[in-house]
């Protein structure tokens, strides 16, 4: 409980720090923001108009306060280029990216954990080493290249077995759920498999470290077979660690997701962000970057809380984390 409170406080602090970082990064731009936004041939009057419309004529603290206040009310500003509100823009693009992320994660976990277990538990040493090789090489494939290979294999019109669409998202979006889902298959497999290889490697490492543990031996002594003991006790005791790793894999998967969005021509958050950065649409970029980063902070928070919930021993340890008191076996137990 104390951990939860402390973690929440630091989450808030981190959010605040993050907002400052994003704000500052976009203000130390060389040159005048408004003139960049107005374009090269803009009249001074137009630049001034933009400046006042965006609130850029006010002091930095004032601007920061305005932005933060807006965020708190769900008002993230209006894109200078498209004229749409940033909120609606994010919403539209997230409808592609979020399902892609969630599906990829499911694929990654669904492939990574069973195969990682098999890489330890398979009876034949040859199968184990083949699976280990797959885990390492799979994690070394750039998402871009993996996607290309999949297109070359399955892409409609290009691939050897051209059965799946490899470009674009249906215009109707999720109103055409079948088409939308089908268009996400190849992208999902790309990111899911690459991330799955990482999960597989960690699962394997965790289980191997449990192989000689007394806890697994004890479970076997109670009457479990080795396989049962490893899966029920070994995997359970690695779960806390695996959740942490999955969280990190998830965060790092995003580079791949953006690449894949661009490769498969999906109108997702990545495409939006790259586009806005390219257009120097600062008001939009500011809110978008902050929101995305905040999303990952939240994810990290959830992962940590889950990690704690999975390990009953942690509640005790963190109470004197890093303190002198915990550093020695005090001989009082």
């Amino acid at each position: 409980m104390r951990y939860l409170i402390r973690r929440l406080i630091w989450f808030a602090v981190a959010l605040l720090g993050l907002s400052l970082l994003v704000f500052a990064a976009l203000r130390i731009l060389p040159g005048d923001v408004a003139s960049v936004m107005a374009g090269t041939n803009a009249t001074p009057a137009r630049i001034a108009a933009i400046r006042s419309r965006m609130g850029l004529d006010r002091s930095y603290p004032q601007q920061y306060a305005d932005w933060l206040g807006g965020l708190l009310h769900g008002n993230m500003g209006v894109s200078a280029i498209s004229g749409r509100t940033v909120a609606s823009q994010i919403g539209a693009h997230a409808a592609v990216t979020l399902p892609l992320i969630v599906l990829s994660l499911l694929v990654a976990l669904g492939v990574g954990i069973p195969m990682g277990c098999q890489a330890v538990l398979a009876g034949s040493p040859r199968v184990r080493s083949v699976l280990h090789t797959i885990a390492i090489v799979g994690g070394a494939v750039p998402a871009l290249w993996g996607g290309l290979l999949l297109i070359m294999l399955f892409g409609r019109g290009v691939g050897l077995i051209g059965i799946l669409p490899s470009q674009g998202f249906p215009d109707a979006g999720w109103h055409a759920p079948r088409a939308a889902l089908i268009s996400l298959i190849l992208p999902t497999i790309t990111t899911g498999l690459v991330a799955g290889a990482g999960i597989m490697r960690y699962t394997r490492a965790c289980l191997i470290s449990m192989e000689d543990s007394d806890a697994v031996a004890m479970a076997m002594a109670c009457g479990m077979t080795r396989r049962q003991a490893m899966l029920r006790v070994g995997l359970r005791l690695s779960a806390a660690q695996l959740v942490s790793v999955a969280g990190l894999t998830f965060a790092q998967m995003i580079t791949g997701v953006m690449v894949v969005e661009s490769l498969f021509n999906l109108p997702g958050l990545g495409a939006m962000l790259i586009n806005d950065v390219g257009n120097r649409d600062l008001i939009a970029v500011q809110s978008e970057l902050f929101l995305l980063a905040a999303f990952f902070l939240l994810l990290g928070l959830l992962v940590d809380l889950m990690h704690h919930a999975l390990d009953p021993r942690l509640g005790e340890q963190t109470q004197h984390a890093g303190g002198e008191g915990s550093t020695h076996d005090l001989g009082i137990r």
Partner: protein
Amino acid sequence: MTSVSDDGKRSKRFGRGGHTTGNVPLRMRFGVIIRSMWHQSVGRFALIVMACWIAVSLLSLFWTPYPLLYTDGGHAWAAPSAAHPLGTDGVGADVLSWLMAGSRTNLVIALLTMLVSAVIGLACTAVMISGRRALASAGVVVVDALIAIPTVLLALLFAVPFGTSISVIVAACGMTYGLNMARIVKPSASLAARSAYVEAARAMGGERVARVFSPISCPRLSPVLAVQLSMSAGTSILAEAGLTYLGVGVPSGVPSWGHTLTTSVRLISVYPLTVLWPGLTVTLVVTALYLLGDTIRDCADPLANVELRKLAAAVGRQTHNTGADA
């Protein structure tokens, strides 16, 4: 590798020669480590790929099949031929030459990322295990929070004010991998910090954090560090490819593997098989880097490598005999 360089420093401090008290001279240790790596098939693979990578990088400084700026206007988007084994890109530049030159950029990126992530990672670890409770727990929570931010968002954030450059990639990768490393190294570091041998050293004098990172316990961390650093290097190559493709990585005009991969995406409609080579190169090198860390961990650690222990024991006996002769 870390432990080796530590030993080097150490033996100098001990007095000349480094032959005292069973200390094995650096060169002998290094020889044994490389030899044991070579005797494992995995290690041999990693060493060969690393050697090729470095050789091609150096070679590309002096020679590539075509100069990088040479464009064959008449042969834009050309399929592979004897003249251009991997074809040409949109302006008729030779893809093979750019791939070769790209290896040196990626080598630089990988090395710098390792350096930056090591500095950030060890600094964060030091804070997290420091004796001051408030500082340590604040460090833990801050790392826990920041670790969730993806590399690509950091790169975008840095790219807005600074534009695209190698430093942006290194900064973004270095920071995320550094935090990652801090979290992974922390358990071993705090184990080391509370371990009896650091305690024993502390009883003889010395600070806690300094002790953990001093040669006393860096050997304890060096296996984890070897694995983590080589992971950072490998992952930085993957990140470079992704970021460059997204337009926030290496600026166009600078050769890199990400650049070549991006080119080959366009080439796919002309001649699909060319896409194999840059991707294979990246996969091979990253695999080798991942494996390199594992084998270094197994071979440079006297606990895991019997040969190192045998060497030390032999040196211990031998020094005495020479001493008796004198």
